């Protein structure tokens, strides 16, 4: 057991921190990044060697352990940095192709993902599926001799408006049981029949997109894994996302909590006993979340699998983030009635307060996650869903 960085980790952290300090001198939470700024930022990350940290060296990565990825997400969150614009390519599609892709797919996509030239999005969620992820309705109709035509609707797809390609799930075997008959495809987002429109969230932001597919064509060479085995490919993609995802979320929440403390000082609530009590409990649980993430990371290093305790990270993170945002808005008193340019921090906390309600829904609702923990971790009998 060692709670400090080892020398190599410490050097990596120090170097990264210096780099971030020069690149991002201040954390302004209400700053919005233009697409061009995001592209520049991502290019700089790639150039500085901060893309593909855990990718194998043979595919151009640095071949480092997840601990380094954790340091990366902690330090970038601390600095208020945005995501790499190709985060989906980097964290989900790349590892999926490395595990399941053909040599041709690897050669064609991996270098571009790493450099940030080829942007990816993901198309798993559908409006009617909701929590029942496998209830995919998008159909892939055979188009002889060598392809498929896709029809359907995908939702909650980040970066789809910028992406060059999409990793998506469609039904190739309509007569088969729900989890079978699904296939994973790589779709060219510029193909005819692909229409992307923004999904506006309850706080007015448009972080996500809807993708409408109307006879959009994919070739046999665009199948990832085997035809009819898409569900297991998708599960492995989601598992890649979950590796250091808990740490990413926690690191951002730590930064968010720092903003909350700044706000407490700004509004002069340092002496309010109810505020102090809530801050203490929030901080204690946040540290509990953080160290549970480190425990999970240590288990990942040993066994290649995150520990059982990792299953609770997203569950607890969402509740804590909601409490942080609720407290921040309450702290503002009557000023909370305003919004946008007329509000403190340009309405940052108003947007966060509303947006945070989605935290217990997106990426697996809390109800679904509790069921998974009950069944897989506590060994309770499966509930008759």
């Amino acid at each position, binding site marked *: 057991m060692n709670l400090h960085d080892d020398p190599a980790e410490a050097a990596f952290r120090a170097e990264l921190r210096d780099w971030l300090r020069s690149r991002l001198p201040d954390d302004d939470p209400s700053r919005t990044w233009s697409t061009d700024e995001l592209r520049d930022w991502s290019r700089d990350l790639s150039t500085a060697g901060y893309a593909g940290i855990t990718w194998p060296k043979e595919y151009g990565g640095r071949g480092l352990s997840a601990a380094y990825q954790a340091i990366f997400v902690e330090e970038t969150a601390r600095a208020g940095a945005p995501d790499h614009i190709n985060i989906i390519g980097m964290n989900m599609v790349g590892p999926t192709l490395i595990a399941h892709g053909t040599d041709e797919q690897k050669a064609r996509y991996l270098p571009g993902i790493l450099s940030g030239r080829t942007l990816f999005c993901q198309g798993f969620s559908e409006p009617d599926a*909701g929590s029942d992820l496998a209830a995919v309705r998008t159909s892939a109709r055979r188009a002889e001799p060598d392809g498929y035509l896709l029809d359907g609707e995908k939702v909650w797809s980040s970066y789809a408006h910028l992406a060059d390609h999409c990793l998506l799930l469609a039904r190739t075997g309509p007569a088969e049981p729900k989890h079978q008959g699904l296939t994973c495809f790589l779709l060219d987002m510029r193909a005819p029949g692909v229409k992307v429109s923004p999904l506006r*969230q309850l706080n*007015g932001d448009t972080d996500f997109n809807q993708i409408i597919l109307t006879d959009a064509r994919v070739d046999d060479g665009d199948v990832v894994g085997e035809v009819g085995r898409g569900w297991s490919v998708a599960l492995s993609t989601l598992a890649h996302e979950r590796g250091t995802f808990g740490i990413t979320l926690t690191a951002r929440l730590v930064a968010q909590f720092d903003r909350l403390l700044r706000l407490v000082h700004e509004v002069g609530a340092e002496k309010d006993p109810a505020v102090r009590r809530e801050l203490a409990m929030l901080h204690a649980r946040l540290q509990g979340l953080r160290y549970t993430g480190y425990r999970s990371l240590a288990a990942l290093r040993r066994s290649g699998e995150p520990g059982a305790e990792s299953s609770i990270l997203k569950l607890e993170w969402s509740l804590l983030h909601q409490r942080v945002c609720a407290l921040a808005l309450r702290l503002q008193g009557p*000023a909370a*009635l305003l*919004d946008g340019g*007329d509000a403190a921090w340009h309405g940052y906390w108003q947007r966060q307060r509303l947006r945070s309600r989605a935290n217990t*829904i997106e990426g697996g609702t809390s109800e679904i996650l509790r069921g998974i923990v009950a069944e897989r971790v506590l060994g309770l009998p499966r509930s008759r869903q």
Partner: protein
Amino acid sequence: MDFALTDEQRAIRQAARDHLERHYPPLRVCALAEGPGGSEAGAWPELIRQGWLDDDLGMVELTLLAEESGRCLHPTPWWTTVALAAPYALAAGEQLTVPATFADGGGTVRAVRSPQGWTLTGQVAAVPQAGAVRCLVVHADTDQGPAVFTCDTGSAGLVVEELSTLDTLRRMARVRCDGTPARLLVEPDRAAEAARTARLRGGVLLAAEAVGVAAGALDMAVAHARQREQFGRPIGSFQAVAHQLTEAYVDTELARSLAYRAAWLVQHETEACAQAVDEAVLVARSAAVRTCETAIQITGGMGVTWEYPLHRWLRRALWLEAYPGFGDDPHDRVAERLLRRADPDEITPTAPDGR
């Protein structure tokens, strides 16, 4: 002791609900929320015809109307008129029948008397729906102390500047007066008492609206849970869904009981009414926020989109939580009265209230 609505009260509630459901389905409300003003300008005459401004409405009747208004986010300035402005008119023995709101200019607006009458000068940082009303009731300072005035929003020297607002159906505006002519409504020597009564009446109607907001959000979520299927059955048949909705129902019912009780006690000017109003506000505000949050959770991916109407209800609940018009944190006032109160045996045996 008979804590039930009378037949007439029930009829008033039903008529209100029918009227509002006919005119303000959620999609219409959403459209108004994004339009100019955030409320329907032309609705006032119809409201008057429907009796919403009648001078014989008691606090319980107004509570029912405020509850129904909250349920569908009734997009007119009716609530600011009756909850914020009218209580001051009432204190002066007048009845307000035009769209109105209240601007608390204590410490920032000065009233001066000249041979031509009173004029107001100063500004109020955030006034609810000032951009949508015709009449302002203004708390202002005179040489004799605070008093209450009224003026038309079209008066000379009056500038109303709408602000960006969390709840766009109840927008806040900055109001500036510069020698604006005004009429004295409540003299300085009666202003404190008028403010006390206005806070009680306003508090009841804030709680009532919060109950309606909770009830409206709960209805939407229950309807969704009955119909939306996942894993081959309606999601309302999952305990994880059903029990959350039950808890929201509990919160809402407690809040409703407290709001009706507070209304009746304020109407009858009992001693216990200040405590009852604070308790209603406490429970109803939190019921509104929590129920809207639960409703969003239950409606899932749909509920967190801009197009789905629920976030309007949450915004109103947050508005009600943050609105400062009725004094400091009620928790402390409630606790203070509890810990200061005399021997419980002193209570007269005729009233179950007051304990």
